[in-house]
């Protein structure tokens, strides 16, 4: 199993100015704890919308690789977004799903990936061709250069443990937005 914070830290060491969209729940805590930067977009609610927001950004900005940090609970709430993303297939989209098979933030109740659901198979069925399931930090480290350099779209299902990260990102949605847009040069 992968420690999510360690994997996020490793990922951030390999990024320069790529935008990262972090889902509500724990992905945004890990991202902030690993590295707070202007190119991070922290979602405080709208569960499931990280995948769609990342898709919209990737379509609008083909010049940027867009990384989505999602959770199993969140993507299970917006599974249809995988079919939309696969249909559009922007090559600059990297969708990482931390799959800890639980709703960690509400007390660790099991999600359906703890039962019979398999997110990688769902992603393939939605139409993604580049899909990886990684269950050790070593495998994650080994796969990352390829994921970051080869055209996608990629879906990476990373099987993680249930450890938490200590940091908490800024809470003002408009601060997060303005900072993010400024970094991307997209303010008018």
């Amino acid at each position, binding site marked *: 199993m992968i420690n999510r914070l360690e994997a996020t830290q490793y990922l951030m060491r390999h990024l320069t100015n790529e935008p990262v969209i972090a889902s509500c729940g724990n992905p945004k805590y890990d991202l902030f704890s690993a590295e707070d930067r202007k190119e991070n977009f922290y979602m405080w609610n709208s*569960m499931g919308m990280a995948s769609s927001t990342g898709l*919209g950004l990737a*379509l*609008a*900005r083909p010049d940027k690789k867009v990384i989505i940090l999602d959770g199993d609970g969140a993507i299970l709430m*917006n599974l249809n977004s995988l079919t*939309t993303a696969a249909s559009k297939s922007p090559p600059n989209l990297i969708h990482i799903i931390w799959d800890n098979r639980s709703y960690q933030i509400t007390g660790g109740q099991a999600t359906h990936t703890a039962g019979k659901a398999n997110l990688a198979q769902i992603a393939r069925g939605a139409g993604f061709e580049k899909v990886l399931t990684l269950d050790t930090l070593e495998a994650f480290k080994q796969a990352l250069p390829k994921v970051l350099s080869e055209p996608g779209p990629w879906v990476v299902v990373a099987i993680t443990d249930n450890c938490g990260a200590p940091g908490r990102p800024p809470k003002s949605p*408009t601060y997060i*937005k303005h900072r993010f847009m400024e970094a*991307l040069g997209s303010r008018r």
Partner: protein
Amino acid sequence: MWAETIVKVLKENDIRSISFLPDTVIGKILNYAVKDGSFELITLAREEEGVGIVTGEYLGGRRGVLMMQSAGLGNSVNALASLAIPYQIPFLLLISQRGELGEFNACHVTMGKALRGILDALGIQHFTLRREDEVEITMRGAIKTAYTSEQPVAVILSSELVGWKDEK
């Protein structure tokens, strides 16, 4: 004609993409958009994801419009309330209304009646198009207000304008 005018105003206001879940009314708009050729068309599987997609586009500096039938607003409420509104994401929400004059399907009436109440409860400004001669000014004004206020603004296409759907 209203559908052509809508596409013209979208283009004039630098709207570059259309995220939609089609109905017959939106289909008429899409026909003009396809003919125009300057929009990226994004077919949605569920309306809620469209809120995320136009949010992402805006964050990247591109303007998108979200088109749905009134039924789809019910599918979109939490994304509007917890993403678009608090993060102040402007876009035009174009809603084709079912459930008012001439409705044949009882299962569209409740959402039709609730439509404006839901938008009001969310604090989303909305304007209804009923006549051909108000399409251009309302569309133009709604888009301007959305980007000025940095909030989604809704324009509702009534059956007075677009005709009602007959049972087939």
